[in-house]
């Protein structure tokens, strides 16, 4: 009688998770087992909930080296770091004068539009610097940005002239979106999530073609523009994509928190 051997194999990684981890490996980064599981669980969860296709760019700059930090989880394409950026354990940090990260894509490039867009920035420390991205038209009127100075400021997203000054960001996750006729900014700390701004001011204007930046922002809506305002906060996650409902943003930011904390061993403020 022939003996049979049953080989038990563990569950395979999600294809996008596997591809991202392979991209990290290609630049000399070996994720730990727990990091691999966390990345896999995050992507699987977002796919299961139907949000993954709305996420167009997702950066997890926690690896300590520029090449790894520049890899997009979604496409595995690379953004570009410029100037003075520290690549710490669990975050990147700009020098506040020259350091920034370019997504190498504009909101228009990734399908964001005047009525539909979502940004997220995770700050590792309570530096009161939103440290996020901006894309802007001239005259500060078409800005969708989460910026420094202890405020999460939103000019009517993707167009219009109404300005709103929100409360301090205090570190944590700042997410902003244009969806379903609403423009919202949310803040998530370990203590919970809150809404900073919620307005139904109508959007207007063309989709911006300036690049999306992290750690800095600019006011020029031109494809060849450069950022002008730089942050020195500690940023652990950057993402951009299509708009989400309030409920989806709630779940998404919670999942991002879990991913970053598990991968870094740090705790969200």
């Amino acid at each position: 009688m022939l003996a049979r051997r049953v080989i038990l194999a563990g569950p395979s990684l999600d294809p996008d998770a596997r591809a991202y981890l392979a991209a990290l490996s290609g630049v000399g980064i070996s994720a730990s087992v727990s990091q691999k599981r966390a990345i896999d669980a995050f992507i699987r969860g977002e796919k299961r909930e139907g949000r993954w296709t709305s996420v167009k760019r997702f950066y997890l700059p926690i690896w300590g080296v520029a090449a790894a930090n520049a890899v997009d989880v979604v496409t595995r394409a690379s953004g570009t770091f410029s100037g003075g950026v520290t690549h710490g354990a669990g975050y990147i940090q700009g020098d506040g004068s020259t350091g920034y990260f370019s997504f190498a894509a504009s909101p228009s490039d990734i399908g964001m539009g005047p009525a539909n867009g979502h940004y997220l920035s995770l700050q590792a420390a309570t530096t009161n610097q939103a440290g996020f991205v901006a894309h802007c038209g001239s005259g500060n009127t078409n800005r969708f940005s989460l910026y420094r100075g202890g405020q999460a400021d939103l000019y009517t997203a993707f167009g219009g002239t109404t300005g709103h000054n929100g409360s301090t960001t205090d570190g944590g996750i700042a997410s902003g979106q244009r969806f379903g006729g609403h423009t919202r900014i949310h803040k998530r700390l370990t203590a919970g999530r809150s809404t900073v701004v919620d307005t139904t001011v109508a959007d207007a204007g063309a989709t911006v073609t300036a690049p999306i930046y992290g750690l800095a922002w600019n006011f020029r809506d031109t494809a060849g523009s450069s950022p002008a305002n730089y942050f020195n906060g500690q940023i652990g996650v950057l993402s951009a994509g299509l708009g989400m409902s309030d409920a989806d943003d709630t779940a998404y930011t919670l999942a991002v928190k879990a991913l970053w904390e598990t991968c870094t061993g740090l705790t969200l403020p």
Partner: protein
Amino acid sequence: MIGFVVSQSTADQVIAGIAAAQIGRGLPVYWTTGAYPIHSGPRMGQMFIPASDEILATPLRGFPPDTPLEFPEAAGLIALLGGLEARVDVDASDLIDPNQTLS
């Protein structure tokens, strides 16, 4: 801010050289010093290439990670800029674009 003050053409040449060093290795351009217009101060109108010791020691890739100075192309680019001793200290406020301030 420690770095080099150069003309636009020299800045373009250096930035292109940094990009070529990565592309030539089959890599995307994931890092650059960048080149920043100087908007005010005694060097207004020229370009600033940040090149502090910290920036030149940026961990780029691999384990242990390479740094910009460890790439063979670095020597030629630094020579083009006048050598490390040609670095100057530029006030960070001189890099602020007056047309891009929040009102």
